[in-house]
Every structure is written in structure tokens, then in C-alpha cells.
């Protein structure tokens, strides 16, 4: 046999795969033998013969393959045989009616795809352990508990004590905090949010640098300012430095200071927070160069760091808790001033703590809401598809009836229909996974309004695929079951004779109408609540005027080496220049703007007031200069703001807010009263309450200290503009540049942009749920129309008879619409009840809006009943308007 023949035989052998498996198993040898036998025949020899042989075999394959795939008509083929048959039939149904298939698959894919996307996001961002971390289950984060403060951060000296004195419980203890830096390299300067970390940071997480080395404990955590070294995040190294392997030893400039790159973090370790990808790490000891606000490394009161620790092998969390409690007792003895009021230490597994435990509850709550919403969307999609199937089942009723009458068991027919719907669901699942892959990528590209190394990238991995598969099968059973049961009801038998349905034929579609309306209502009320919350959040009075016309910029003269008096000379000149701008009506300075990410608190004593045991004694505060209150437009209840004369030579003063005054001096004027914090301070003014930490917070005590008396640790310029804030922003940059071109300027923006941070939770909730709400509304409208139209069309014959018997068309329409509306109202009641439960659950996540918001709870149902009425009116009019005889003949 020559090689050509060999090739032909191999090809034929490959083509034998077209035959059913059992046939191939049995006769492959025979078929190949036949090929060999024929090959030796003279008529199939030579080139012409080979071509003839090929043509003859092809014809034979084409004739015999379909023949052998047709199921044998012997009774009982076993479960597998039936399954294969059903699948084959299902595929044929998929292909036969492409429009139907497309409608069903797209609807389902939307529903399943959104679930898969949300599942990947929630799992990737909240539930999964940190990637690239060794034994993540042994990492814990610790927080200091004070009266009124559950999750307090840690100062550097406190961290050092924990690190050095808890060796029995912890293998290693690290500290980190986010820190904005300006990175200059060549001509370009860019602002990054990097991280200050303790020297043992990478060791604690068990992350081995991909290149170079980690910081070395005992070296980079000694001598403040002595070791200007940096480690780059892996993706930052790749995008900003092109993955240059020669990066080690290069110098980058951070806030004007040269830093030597000593390492590149491993590829899979993106930092201690799951939704961030940290671009650069520097040692805490370089805080003075990187983040002067946190530069007081030796201050026990400067609590800005997160502390994470790795439990020793075999040490349980309880044991670690005991060690921390014992340490607190020691520290109280050593530094009574600093520890007397600390109630304890809270230890939380790293996976549960995330970015900050106080946010964990809200983000889990929000995730639960979003997951519920997408689950509702999927249910609505299922109802829609069930309806499509129901309509098709009607067309196939004769077929089903014939099968049943020919002796197919009901279970057998149900199984066939379910196989079909599962097949649809699986096709939809494939589309859904594709959709989720696109959607999660889009999520990774989302720009957050807060500066930060945010990275929302999540993977569509095996678990997501498994999840998608499971919900697809559940969906397939769900939307397939109703039509399958309906199609095989005993009364279907009468259909064989060509009659209409039977008694109770519309019960199933009535149930679908009610379910559809109820589900849509829950979803839409939920979305409505969050949209109202977004509206509510933007209507919350933050305690100052028109943020759009407020211009802000942060700077720190000490970065450029200015000292004490020079700082004030510089700042005063800047504020004076700002005030002189024609577009500016008032200007001042403050250390931290309200509604940002910074907050500071300090302990107070009030002569004549006794604090309860667990009452919080530290109050959030900021430092301000004259002009600040005026520029912000803060209302005074009594007294005055700060004056130029409130300086080191003047009497110590303080301004407090309404809650503060009412709490400590109820029923009295606060003016002239004394607050003991950084000396005895006399209250000179009481301002209206504002929002300081978040827009959703309850009115909370707050105090303002005069910068000129306690020192400008960091200055934020605030200017009220008359009209064009954009122009003033430009002028402000120019002013600073003309005074000192090297002075770095941060966060140059309007107060409105700054408040993007505070509005973020409401914006995320509002936009995500708003989007789902619109999708849900579309699905619901289509679904309700479909269900209504179907149930009306089922009654065409009956309606025709009524018209033929003399009923007026309008009466018929009214009757049908009335019945439709009754069903919608029933659905609305069910939906409202469930939505009310849901509303109560999400109340904590809403701003300025009750969980039973009257607007959401009236507008949405009205809208939905309107849609339902229209959805039933259109088909009713058509049904009543047609020729009654036509209708009678139609079935």
C-alpha cells in the first residue's frame, strides 16, 4: 500500500466518526475491511479509480450517516437513548425557529450574565482571600477600641510596641497606610496614591518580590528619613517603566526627594486591599519626606496606620486577643495619658476586615442588595421566557397530545420539554459567560472619583463558570417546568380532536401575570429607593453653601523646607493674593476639608461635665483661619468665627457646632464656656451642624481650633468664587507658581468635585440599581405585554362568541382589561408587601430616604399598573375588533 492510499484510508477512518458510536464500535473494522477490499478492485485503481472511490464513499457516507442517526423505532431505548433523542430534537427546535430562539436566549443571557457579573465582582472584591498572600487565613487586622469608636487606627509607637512585645502570638506584625505622592521622572510629574509600609510588610504577607528585594526589618525601619528606598507594584512597573528589568537601583523622585528602587512586588500581590493595585511602597520611616501630615512618627496620638499581623502556627485568635489585652494593661501603666481611655483591641480576620471593617458592613449590605436585584432580574427573565415557551407550547399542543395518545408517558413528555428548556438555558449560559467577561473587564476600567490605586479587575474563573452553570440549570428548570406541566395536562387530550384548550387553561398565564408584576415591582421599587437616595444625598445640607463655587487646593510648605514663621508668611501671602482676585469674594484656610477621607480627633475635658464610662471623649476637629467660615458660608448660631488676632499672642479660643454646644451645655449659651484641649479654650462661636465624615452621618459634635494657635500641619486653601470657578482654579495654580514654583499643590478642585467622595456610595447605589431598574422595567414591560397578549389570545374564541352573541366590543374590551388590571393589582399588592420588607432591610444604606419612601412606593406601582393596562388593552382591542367568525374558526 503506498502512502497515498494510506492517507485516503486514514481520512476515511476519521470520517467514520460521523457514525453513531455504537455502530462505529461494532463495525469500524468491517467498514475499514470494506475500504481495503474495494481498494484492490480494478475499477478503483489508478488516479481515476481513486477519485471514483472517493466520490463513491462520500455518497455512501452522505446516504448512510443520517440513516443510522435516526432513532430505531424499537420500544424502550433506555434513559440514555431517550436523552440523546430529546437533545437531538431540542437542537432541531433551536435551529428551526431562530427568532424564538434569539428572543429566549437573549433574555436569559441578560439575566444569567448579570448574575454571573455581580457574582464575580462580589466574590473577587469582597469574599476571596487576598491574592498572592501566603496562608491568608492566618492574617488578622487589629483596631483600637475607644468610647464611641470601634475601629481606631494605630500610631507608629503603638505599632512598634505591638510588634516588639507580642512575639508569642504573632510571627510578624506590619503596618500600612495609603499616602498620596507626586512621582517625578524626567519631565513628567504624576500624582499617585501609594503606600507607606513597615519594613516587614512583604514578609508579613508572605509576598516575595518578583525583582530585587523587600524592605529589610532592622534597616528600613530605623532612622527616620535615612533610607529613601521604594518598591514598585508589579503592574505599575510594567505600565510606567515598561517592565524594565534594569529598574533596580534606579532613582525616582517622590515629592521632590530621590528614592532608590530596590524591588518590584510579585505579580499576583497587589497590596493589602482587594480592590486596589498599589503602584509604589515606601518605608514608614520616610513619612516626613512623603506625607508630612503623618510625619510625627514618635507621636502616640497620631493614629493613622492599619496594623496587620500573622498568627503563629497553632495560635488561635482568642490567644492573640489575650496577648493584646495583656499588652494594653502594660501600656496603660507606662503611658497612662495615652491608654487610659482605650477600652480594648479588636482583632478581625484579614478577610473580614478588608479596607476597613466599618465599611465592610455597608459594602456587604450593598452587595446583598445588588445580588438580590439581579436575582430578581433573572426571575423576571425566567417568567418572560416561560411565557414564550407557554405560547409555543400552545402551538405544539397537537404534537404533545399526539405523543401522549400514542402512549408516551406524561413524565416522558415533560422530560423532553425540560431537556429543550435546559438546552436553551445552556446556550444562554454560554452567551452569559461572554457577557460577564466583557462586563467585568468594563468594571476594571471604571474610574473612581476618589484618588487611589483602585483596581476592580476580577476574573471570570472556574467558580464563576460553575455558578453560571448552576443558575442556568435552575433557570432552565424554572422556566421549563410551567409550560411542560401545562402542555401535558390531562385535558390536553381533547386537543387531539382539534378543540381549544380546556377548563382552567389560563390559570397558568394568570399566575405568570401576577408573578411578573410582583417581581417587577420589587425590583423597581428597590431601584426607585436608591435613586431617591441619590437625590436625597445631593439634597443633604452639608453645612456650607454651594460647593460648586468653592475652590480648594492643598499644599504643604514644610515639604519645601519652610519653617515656622516662613510658613505663615507664605500662606498669608497666598490667601491675600487669592482674596485680591476679582472672581473671589472670600478666602481662608483649613487643615482638612469636611467630607474627605481625612479625619482627626482629640480628647477634651469640659469643666462641670462628667463623661459616662463608655462615652466618647475625643471629638473630631479641624484647624481653620479667619475667612474660612465666611468662604464656606457656614451659618453662625451665636458668636463669631476666627480673627487674625486669634494667634499665639491671643487668648486660646475655639468654635464648636450646635450638637457640641447642646450636649455639654444644654439650655445654656455656649459663649464664654471653656473646652480643655490643647489648653483651656474659650468658646467664641457656635456654628450650625454640618456633615464632616459622610453625608449619611447623624449630627455629630465637631470643633474648630484656630490654626494660628495650634499650627498649620497641613493647609487647604478655600476660596468662594463669584462666578467662574474653573478660571479661579487656573489663577490659583498661577499664584502658587509665582510664589514658589517648586511647591507641590494637591487636590486642586472645586468643593463639588471633592464631595464626589462623600457621594460615592449613593452614586454607586443609584447608578447600578438605576441601570438594573431600567433593564428590569424593559424586561417587565415586554414580559407583562407578552403574558397579557398571550392570555388574551387564548381567549379569542371565547371573546368571539361573546361578540357574536351580541356583546358590545367596548364591553368586551372593558371586561378583558378589567381582568388584566385585577391580576396586576394582585401582583402589585404582593410586590408592595415584599418591597416593603426589602425596603426595611436596606434602610441603613439609604440617604435621607425612608425604606418606605412614599414617592417610590406610589410612583412605581402607578407606572407599572399603567404599563400593565396598556399591555392588556392593545391585545384586547385586537381580539374584540376582529371578525367573530374568524375567531371562532381560528382554532
Amino acid at each position: 500500500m503506498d502512502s497515498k492510499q494510506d492517507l485516503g484510508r486514514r481520512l476515511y477512518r476519521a470520517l467514520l466518526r460521523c457514525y453513531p458510536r455504537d455502530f462505529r464500535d461494532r463495525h469500524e473494522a468491517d467498514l475499514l475491511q470494506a475500504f481495503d477490499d474495494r481498494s484492490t478492485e480494478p475499477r478503483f485503481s489508478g488516479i481515476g479509480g481513486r477519485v471514483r472511490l472517493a466520490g463513491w464513499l462520500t455518497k455512501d457516507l452522505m446516504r448512510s450517516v443520517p440513516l443510522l442517526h435516526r432513532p430505531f423505532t424499537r420500544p424502550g431505548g433506555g434513559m440514555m437513548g431517550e436523552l440523546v433523542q430529546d437533545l437531538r430534537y431540542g437542537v432541531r427546535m433551536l435551529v428551526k425557529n431562530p427568532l424564538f430562539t434569539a428572543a429566549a436566549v437573549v433574555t436569559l443571557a441578560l439575566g444569567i450574565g448579570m448574575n454571573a457579573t455581580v457574582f464575580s465582582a462580589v466574590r473577587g472584591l469582597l469574599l476571596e482571600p487576598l491574592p498572592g498572600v501566603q496562608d491568608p487565613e492566618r492574617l488578622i487586622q487589629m483596631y483600637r477600641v475607644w468610647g464611641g469608636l470601634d475601629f481606631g487606627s494605630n500610631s507608629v509607637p503603638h505599632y512598634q510596641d505591638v510588634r516588639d512585645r507580642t512575639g508569642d502570638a504573632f510571627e510578624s506584625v506590619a503596618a500600612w497606610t495609603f499616602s498620596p505622592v507626586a512621582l517625578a521622572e524626567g519631565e513628567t510629574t504624576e500624582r499617585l496614591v501609594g503606600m507607606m509600609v513597615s519594613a516587614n510588610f512583604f514578609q508579613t504577607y508572605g509576598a516575595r518580590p518578583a525583582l530585587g528585594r523587600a524592605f529589610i526589618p532592622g534597616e528600613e525601619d530605623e532612622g527616620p528619613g535615612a533610607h529613601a528606598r521604594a518598591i514598585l507594584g508589579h503592574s505599575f512597573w510594567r505600565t510606567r517603566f515598561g517592565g524594565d528589568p534594569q529598574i533596580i537601583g534606579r532613582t525616582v523622585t517622590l515629592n521632590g526627594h530621590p528614592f532608590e528602587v530596590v524591588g518590584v512586588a510579585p505579580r499576583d500581590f497587589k497590596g493589602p486591599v482587594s480592590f486596589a493595585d498599589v503602584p509604589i511602597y515606601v518605608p514608614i520611616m520616610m513619612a516626613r519626606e512623603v506625607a508630612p501630615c503623618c510625619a510625627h512618627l514618635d507621636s502616640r496620638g497620631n493614629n493613622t496606620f492599619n496594623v496587620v499581623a500573622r498568627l503563629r502556627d497553632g495560635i488561635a485568635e482568642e490567644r492573640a486577643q489575650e496577648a493584646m489585652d495583656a499588652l494594653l494593661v502594660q501600656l496603660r501603666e507606662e503611658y497612662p495619658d495615652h491608654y487610659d481611655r482605650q477600652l480594648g483591641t479588636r482583632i478581625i480576620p484579614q478577610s473580614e476586615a478588608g479596607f476597613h471593617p466599618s465599611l465592610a458592613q455597608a459594602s456587604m449590605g450593598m452587595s446583598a442588595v445588588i445580588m438580590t436585584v439581579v436575582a430578581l432580574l433573572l426571575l423576571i427573565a425566567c417568567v418572560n421566557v416561560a411565557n414564550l415557551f407557554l405560547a409555543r407550547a400552545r402551538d405544539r399542543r397537537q404534537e404533545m397530545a399526539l405523543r401522549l395518545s400514542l402512549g408516551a408517558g406524561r413524565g416522558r413528555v415533560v422530560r423532553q420539554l425540560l431537556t429543550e428548556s435546559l438546552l436553551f438555558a445552556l446556550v444562554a449560559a454560554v452567551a452569559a459567560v461572554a457577557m460577564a467577561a466583557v462586563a467585568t473587564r468594563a468594571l476594571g476600567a471604571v474610574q473612581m472619583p476618589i484618588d487611589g490605586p483602585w483596581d476592580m479587575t476580577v476574573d471570570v474563573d472556574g467558580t464563576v463558570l460553575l455558578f453560571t452553570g448552576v443558575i442556568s440549570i435552575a433557570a432552565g428548570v424554572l422556566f421549563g417546568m410551567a409550560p411542560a406541566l401545562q402542555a401535558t395536562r390531562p385535558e390536553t387530550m381533547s386537543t387531539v380532536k382539534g378543540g381549544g384548550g380546556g377548563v382552567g387553561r389560563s390559570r397558568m398565564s394568570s399566575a405568570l401575570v401576577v408573578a411578573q408584576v410582583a417581581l417587577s415591582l420589587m425590583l423597581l421599587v428597590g431601584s426607585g429607593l436608591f435613586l431617591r437616595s441619590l437625590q436625597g444625598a445631593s439634597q443633604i445640607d452639608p453645612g456650607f453653601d454651594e460647593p460648586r463655587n468653592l475652590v480648594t487646593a492643598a499644599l504643604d510648605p514644610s515639604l519645601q523646607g519652610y519653617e515656622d514663621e516662613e510658613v505663615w508668611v507664605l500662606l498669608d501671602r497666598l490667601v491675600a493674593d487669592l482674596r485680591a482676585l476679582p472672581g473671589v469674594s472670600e478666602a481662608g484656610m483649613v487643615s482638612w476639608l469636611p467630607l474627605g477621607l481625612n479625619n482627626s480627633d482629640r480628647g477634651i475635658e469640659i469643666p462641670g461635665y462628667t463623661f459616662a464610662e463608655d462615652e466618647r471623649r475625643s471629638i473630631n476637629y479641624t484647624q481653620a483661619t479667619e475667612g474660612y467660615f465666611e468662604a464656606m458660608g457656614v451659618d453662625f448660631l451665636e458668636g463669631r468665627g476666627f480673627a487674625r488676632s486669634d494667634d499665639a499672642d491671643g487668648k486660646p479660643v475655639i468654635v464648636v457646632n450646635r450638637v457640641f454646644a447642646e450636649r455639654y451645655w444644654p439650655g445654656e449659651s455656649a459663649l464664654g464656656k471653656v473646652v480643655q484641649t490643647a489648653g483651656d479654650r474659650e468658646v467664641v462661636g457656635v456654628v450650625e451642624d454640618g456633615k464632616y465624615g459622610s453625608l449619611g452621618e447623624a449630627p455629630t459634635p465637631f470643633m474648630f481650633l484656630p490654626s494660628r494657635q495650634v499650627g498649620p500641619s497641613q493647609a487647604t486653601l478655600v476660596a468662594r468664587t463669584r462666578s467662574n470657578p474653573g478660571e479661579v482654579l487656573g489663577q490659583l495654580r498661577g499664584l502658587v507658581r509665582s510664589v514658589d514654583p517648586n511647591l507641590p499643590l494637591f487636590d486642586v478642585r472645586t468643593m463639588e468635585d471633592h464631595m464626589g467622595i462623600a457621594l460615592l456610595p449613593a452614586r454607586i447605589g443609584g447608578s447600578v440599581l438605576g441601570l438594573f431598574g431600567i433593564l428590569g422595567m424593559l424586561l417587565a414591560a415586554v414580559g407583562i405585554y407578552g403574558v397579557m397578549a398571550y392570555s388574551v389570545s387564548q381567549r379569542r374564541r371565547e371573546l368571539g362568541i361573546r361578540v357574536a352573541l351580541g356583546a358590545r366590543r367596548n364591553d368586551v374590551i372593558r371586561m378583558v382589561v378589567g381582568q388584566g388590571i385585577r391580576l396586576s393589582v394582585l401582583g402589585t399588592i404582593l410586590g408592595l408587601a415584599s418591597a416593603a420588607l426589602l425596603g426595611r432591610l436596606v434602610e441603613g444604606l439609604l440617604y435621607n430616604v425612608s425604606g418606605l419612601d412614599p414617592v417610590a412606593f406610589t410612583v412605581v406601582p402607578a407606572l407599572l399598573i399603567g404599563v400593565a393596562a396598556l399591555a392588556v388593552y392593545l391585545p384586547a382591542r385586537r381580539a374584540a375588533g376582529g371578525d367573530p367568525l374568524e375567531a371562532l374558526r381560528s382554532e
Partner: protein
Amino acid sequence: MAQLDDVLPLTNTVFHMLVALADSPRHGYAVAQDVEELSDGRMVLGPGTLYGSLVRMQEQGLIQEAKNPGDEGLHAGRRRYYRITPLGTEALRLESARLLKTATVAQRRLEG
């Protein structure tokens, strides 16, 4: 197993294959060769058609597998042999009678 009514009338292929097996068991290739000869070379059964039909005919109970009756040709030991069953014989008898009757009438009319 099917009844006579289910298999009649026989298709052209099945009829020829039954004829080929009518007097003695044969292997597949021999059946194909015999059919080709019977049909004056007009029916050349491809492997798929041949074995597909053999499978179907077994399902219907027209033929069954048989032992090699003593052939010693090429690959004789490896080949599958088939023989006609009583149902197949009966079906072939009825079908050929029907064809004969029709053919006789046809010839008589053409002559007449």
C-alpha cells in the same frame, strides 16, 4: 422483533440483500458483491449503506449473525457472517411472490 407487516414491502436494497443471503450465510463484502451481480452492476453498496442496512435488518429480525460456514478466503477469519432468519425467508418469499405477480401481469399486458 418486528412483525411481517412492519417490514413489508421491502426496500430495493433489503430485497437484494435478502436474495444474496437466501441460500447460504455470507460475509458483508460477499453480500455486496452478490447484490452488484444480481443488479447487473447497477447497485454497488457502499460500506456504510451495507453495514447500516445489515444492522437495521438485524433489528427487524430479518437476518442474524452466523458462524463462518468454512470459508477460507482472504481475511475469512476476521469477517462477520450473516444468515437469513425464518422471518426473513418468509418476507422474501412474500415479496418475491408479489413482485412476480406484478411482473407477470406487466409482461402479459405488454405482450397482449
